């Protein structure tokens, strides 16, 4: 049961949030010119790393804002949360 630091509201219980998977997947602009492979890659294929993951959360029962988190998927430790559009925080030196 995580404590998640909403970049707007501060530390809150995990059950106030929902996770929406990998962050920083930009929607292609020229969708018509993409191959089926490229389009499928954007829609379906994911890093799913064992380790550091940048992912999107939304403070569903709170301020309704979406933001990003940097989390280790093995220890579930959250190293940073940051607003959409903010620079990606660096990977931690001691991730586990």
């Amino acid at each position, binding site marked *: 049961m995580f404590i998640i630091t909403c970049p707007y509201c*501060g530390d809150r219980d995990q059950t106030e949030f929902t996770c929406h998977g990998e962050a920083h997947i930009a929607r292609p602009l020229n969708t018509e010119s993409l191959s089926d492979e490229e389009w499928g890659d954007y829609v379906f294929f994911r890093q799913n790393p064992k380790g550091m993951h940048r992912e999107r959360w939304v403070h*569903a029962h709170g*301020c309704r804002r979406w933001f990003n988190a940097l989390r280790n998927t093995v220890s579930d430790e959250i190293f940073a949360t940051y607003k959409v559009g903010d620079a990606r925080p660096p990977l931690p030196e001691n991730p586990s």
Partner: protein
Amino acid sequence: MADQATLRAGMATPLSGQSYSSNGITISEQQSCDKLIVRADFSDAATVAALSQVLGQTPALEANTYSMADDKAVYWLGPDERLVYLHAQTAADTIGSVQAAIPAGKGAVVDVSDYYTVIQLSGQNARDVLSSGTPFDVHPRVFGAGQCAQTRYGSATVLLSALDDDTPTFNVQVRWSFAQYLWTYLARVAGYC
């Protein structure tokens, strides 16, 4: 056609003003007041100044707080979102002036007067009953008068606000459709705490 008096008489709230009292706590549905959602760029000084003018106060700028002056209260809901309680006016009378304070197309004002109802918890057990149903920490050190928080209570999404530290008093705002659920929950838990 119905006259204004009949109209008012026919008005309803989801809990029809129910109240419960025992065990060091009173729970009651508050008289309804009109409410507005205001979406705007609150980092813009000009917008804030204009809104302050209309609302008679600098609208709460800090997360998890509300501001209050005269007959209005402004709750922080999100970086670009506030909720205004109008204790005296109607939304219809106010909406235009609030809209005018926001640059055209760069925000929104929405009448949500009936969207919510407010249940008040008061008494020496109020804090305990409140903490029972929410993972949010309502200890006075972190949640004193002037503070508010959107969180969960049971399964409902709520806006909590702390009104008074001496006689612990809290408002719990909930959507109309969930009001009966939340009411039953609070009354049940009050009996257990």
